[in-house]
Structure formats: structure tokens, C-alpha cells
């Protein structure tokens, strides 16, 4: 019975923890389908994390924080996009630049505004939690899926919307076409560049929200709070076979890995550094197994 309770709690926590992965990976899916390796997810998320909590602190409104945080991340995405698309810079290097800019600028601004390069705390209300008493009584499902903050549910809606946009609209068709063959899209009289631009902006939107989830939950900004989540989101896109539902599954796995390591931190005597290394180790292992599987499947 105790084991079942632990498992239930783990999965419940996973549903919350996976949200930033899920959001960032969903936005990254757009850029990936448009044929760009978007390693800026990490930096865009950090922009969203910093500005959402700062604006929430300044305005006293969580909603304003979320909206302005997303807009800040989209502004950074716009910079990233115009340098890659208009100045024709290497997308990979410009992505690195975005990550470097995010980690540098957030600390510079935090130091300037709060004279503090460490943890900055804010007086914020808690994110509203969705609770529907009737549904909560459903065993298992009620325990696992309800009682999270509303941004978690918003992320599910975004995955649904992303899936619809990618597979059910002309826009999605052309976006995927851009990734497969930009020349074909151009020959139809469309501009592949504007599809790539829109994809980067979408990734800015979702990463901004992903960052907001991190800091608003904590009511604090910690330098480099994203801690590699953008990279893991990138891997989730590959492991999820570049589909929204695959990404959902992959994000769940990474969320579970983090939930298990959080649990292990309290329950078993493992050095914290090993626990921090665990998500990366499990990710690289998953990647290798996946490529082995693909290697032999392709051969058979």
C-alpha cells in the first residue's frame, strides 16, 4: 500500500514537472519541422523565466507576468530569427548566442535591479490550482491528473492546438514542406523564410511560458534556473519521433526521471550530484538505445 502511494505521488509530481519539457519541446517541434535545429530553447526559456517573475513582481499580477514573460521570450526569438534568417547566420551558432545572451543578460539585469547575483525572491500569490471536486473523486485519474496549477492544463491545450495546427491546417502542411524541401515551397510562390520565422516565434512563445512555469511556481529567480531543460526538450523532440504525442510520452519519461531523482534525494542516501547527473545520463542512454533500434530496424 505504501509503495502504491509512493508511485501515485511520483506520477502526480511527474505531471507537474514535465510541463516545461513538454512546452519547450512542442515549440521546438515547429522549428524542427521547418528544418532548423533550434538549440536556443534553453535560452528562450531562461528569458521567459526571468522576465515573467520580474514583471509579476513589478505589477503584482501573475497574469501580467506570464504575458510579459512570453512577450520577452518572443522578442528574443525575434532577434534570433532575424539574425539567422535575414543576416543568414548559422542557426546553430546563433542558437548558442541566444543561450549565452540569456544567461549573461539575466544576471546583469538581476544585479542591476536587485544588487543580487544569487536567488531573487518575490512576493507573489500562488498560481491558481484547478480543482473540480466531482472529478477529483474519480480514483486514480483524479489523483494523478487534477490538482495541478492552471499552466499545466494550459500546456495540454497548447499540445492539442499544436497538433491541430501541424496536421490539420494548410499552414502546418506548408511548415512541414519547408523542412522537407524549402525549394518546393518557394516554387509554389510561398516564402519558406516566413514559415521558419513563424516557427521560431512559436518556440519563443512556448519556451517563454515554460520559463514562466519554472519561476512562478517558485516565486523566485535563480540564475540558470532552466538548468539544461531546453536541451532535454530538444532530445524529447527526437525521442518523440517529431510528433506531438511522441513528445508528450518523451516528456513524461524525463519528468518521471526528475521526479524519481527528487524522491531519491529525500529517501535514499545518494550524493546530490549523481541525482543532478541522472536526467542527462538517462537521456543520453535513451538516445543511444533509440539510435541502435533505428539502426537495426532500418537494416531489417
Amino acid at each position, binding site marked *: 500500500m505504501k509503495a502504491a502511494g509512493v508511485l501515485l505521488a511520483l506520477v502526480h509530481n511527474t505531471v507537474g514537472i514535465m510541463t516545461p519539457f513538454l512546452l519547450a519541446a512542442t515549440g521546438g517541434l515547429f522549428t524542427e519541422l521547418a528544418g532548423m535545429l533550434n538549440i536556443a530553447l534553453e535560452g528562450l526559456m531562461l528569458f521567459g523565466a526571468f522576465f515573467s517573475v520580474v514583471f509579476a513582481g513589478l505589477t503584482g499580477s501573475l497574469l501580467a507576468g506570464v504575458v510579459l514573460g512570453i512577450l520577452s521570450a518572443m522578442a528574443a526569438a525575434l*532577434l534570433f530569427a532575424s*539574425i539567422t534568417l*535575414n*543576416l*543568414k*547566420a*548559422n542557426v*546553430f*551558432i*546563433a542558437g*548558442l*548566442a*541566444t543561450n*549565452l*545572451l540569456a*544567461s*549573461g*543578460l539575466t*544576471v*546583469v539585469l538581476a*544585479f*542591476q535591479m536587485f544588487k543580487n*547575483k544569487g536567488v531573487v525572491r518575490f512576493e507573489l500569490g500562488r498560481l491558481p490550482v484547478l480543482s473540480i471536486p466531482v472529478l477529483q473523486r474519480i480514483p486514480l485519474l483524479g489523483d494523478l491528473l487534477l490538482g495541478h496549477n492552471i499552466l499545466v492544463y494550459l500546456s495540454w491545450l497548447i499540445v492539442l492546438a499544436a497538433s491541430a495546427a501541424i496536421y490539420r491546417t494548410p499552414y502546418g502542411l506548408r511548415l512541414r514542406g519547408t523542412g522537407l524541401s524549402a525549394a518546393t515551397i518557394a516554387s509554389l510562390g510561398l516564402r519558406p523564410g516566413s514559415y521558419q520565422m513563424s516557427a521560431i516565434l512559436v518556440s519563443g512563445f512556448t519556451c517563454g511560458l515554460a520559463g514562466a512555469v519554472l519561476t512562478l511556481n517558485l516565486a523566485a529567480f535563480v540564475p540558470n534556473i532552466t538548468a*539544461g531543460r531546453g*536541451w532535454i526538450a*530538444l*532530445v524529447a523532440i*527526437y525521442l518523440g519521433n517529431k510528433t506531438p504525442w511522441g513528445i508528450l510520452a518523451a516528456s513524461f519519461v524525463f519528468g518521471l526521471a526528475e521526479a524519481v531523482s527528487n524522491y531519491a534525494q529525500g529517501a535514499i542516501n545518494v*550524493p546530490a*550530484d*549523481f541525482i*543532478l*547527473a541522472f536526467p*542527462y*545520463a538517462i*537521456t*543520453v542512454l535513451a*538516445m*543511444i538505445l533509440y*539510435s*541502435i533500434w*533505428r*539502426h537495426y530496424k532500418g537494416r531489417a
Partner: protein
Amino acid sequence: MKRRSWEAVVAGASGLAITLGISFLIAVVLIVVLSKQPLATIYYFFVGPLTNRYYLGNMLNTAVPLVFTGLGIAVAFKASVFNLGGEGQVYSGALAATVICLALPQANGYLGGVLAAAGALATGAVLAGLSGFFKMQWGTDELISSFLISSAVGFIVNYFITGPLDDPGNNLLATFAIDRRFFLMRIFLPSKLNVSALFALAAAGLVFFLMYYTHAGYEMRMCGLNREFSRYGGINVSAYVVLPMLLSGALHGLGGGLAILGTYHMAVKEFSFGMGWNGIAVALIAGNHPLGVVPAAVFFAYLDAGAKAAMLHSDVTFEIAAVVQSVIFYLVTAQALYNALRRRRRTA
């Protein structure tokens, strides 16, 4: 033909000058916005690193690991292989060198130093080589796998530095110090500049020779230009996924190891942070040319030293260096910037 390539060089150089010019401009703007005494801050940022032997030597010393990481990235990029794990390779190389020195209380200074450097080199090579091996064997993307392995290893190194090897006697998150016998000789007192700077120059020369004057180097560059064509030409292309990674990792590891022997004398938690990332920028500024890596590394070290001097003597924080460096990252590969210059030259 000759004329055109010369024009390309001029356009490339002026494009680079514009990139660096814009980055300096951003530095000035940032300082004016952030500092309460902008003129003094600007002075310390740009002139500070050159004002005395101590600052100048330390700046050159900061460039030394960047030469190694820049070379490591240049080798990989020339072969179109991506090593994003530089951070972890430098850091674990540094730990390996420290451990070897600590494990050899009786050894002769030279022998121990050589062993430590060799251990650092091997550690980096194995870490990066793994990603190359996975790529060759199963097509696992080396860019992401090298990053992930390096990140995981970084935490493990942290564990050893702050756990089993931690010296409770010092107030740092750092290991026991290595013995004086293993220290590399200082060559520009009172600064920390040491003979590893000469090793860095030698490494740049060696990598240049390897890439441009040997058979393996030729085949590696061919694979970088066009892997399919190279396969058709009878080159063993899968070997040139692993070899550049091994070399790249070895240079990163060695850079970390020499930083311990020459500068730090103990592994301090996260002391090498940024050396790997900045190596990428250094290689790109150098156009992935091994000899260009040296001035590019010095330039990067200059930005770092400038930000440090500005922080010490004025009221801005060190991270403005990261912002300025990100501007360089943004623009250094911006084709349009370079092409615009080339076009204007042609019409003129």
C-alpha cells in the same frame, strides 16, 4: 582566381572587423546604460587589461586554455563533426590531472607532470571519442550526445571535487592542492602566465601541420567538405567521425589539465566554466584555422579581462562580458554581413 580569393579574404576580414566593432559598440552602450561612472568603466574595460604586467600576463594566461579548446573545436568543425561537450572534457581533464598529481607523492616533478597531462588528454579523448564511436556505430547524433555526456560528467566531477577529494583545510569548494614540484614554471612574473602558453603555441603549430601537411589531415578536411564524395574517393569516412572527436577531446582535456598544472594547482568547483563554450567562438572567429585560433583566443581573453577589470575598479558586473561575447557569436557566422561587403567591393 587568385584575385577573387584575395577579395574573399578582404571581405572576410572586414566582416570580422564589423562584427568585432559592433560587439565593442554594444559593450560601450551596456556600460553607459548600466554604470554610474561610464567613462571610468569604459576606460577599465578597454584599457585596464593592458595597464600593467600583472593584468597583461593574466590576460594572456586566460587565453591559454581557450587556444586548446579553440583548436579542439577547429579540428572537429574542419571535419564537419560537432563536439559540444567541450565543457565536460576540459573539466574532467582537469580533475584527471589533479588526481594523478595527488596520487603520486613520490614522483619526479617532470615525470609526474607529463603523466598528469597525459591523463588529462586521455580523459578528454575518451569522453569525446565515445560520441564519435556512437555516431560511427549507430548514427547517434554526436552534437547532442557529446553535450549530454559532458553535462552528466560535469556533475560527477563536481561530486569528486566537493566530496572525496575536498580539502577541508581550504575554505573553497576545491580539492587538495597538488605538490609544488608539479607546478609549471612562471614566465612573466608577477602574473600567472606560465610555460603552458608555449605549449599552446606549439599545439597550434602541430594542429596546423597535421591538418594541412599530412595525409590524415587532408582526408579529414576532405570528409569535412563532402563526406559522400570522400567515400566515393575511397576514404574511410567512418574513421573520420571518430578521429576528429578523439583529437578534439584530447585537446580539450589537455587544456584543462595544463590549467591545473600551470595556474590553479587544485581543482576548484566549476573553475573551467565557459572554457568549452568560448572555444567554439574562438574557433569561429579564427575561421577554424589553427593558426588563427591564437589571436582569436587572446581577443576573447581580452574581453574577459576587460570585464574583470571593470568589475574590480567600477560598478558593473562581470557578466557583461557574456553579453558582449554573445553579440560576437550572433554575428560571426552572419553570411549576409560578409556578402554585402563582397558585393559592394565588386561593384565599386
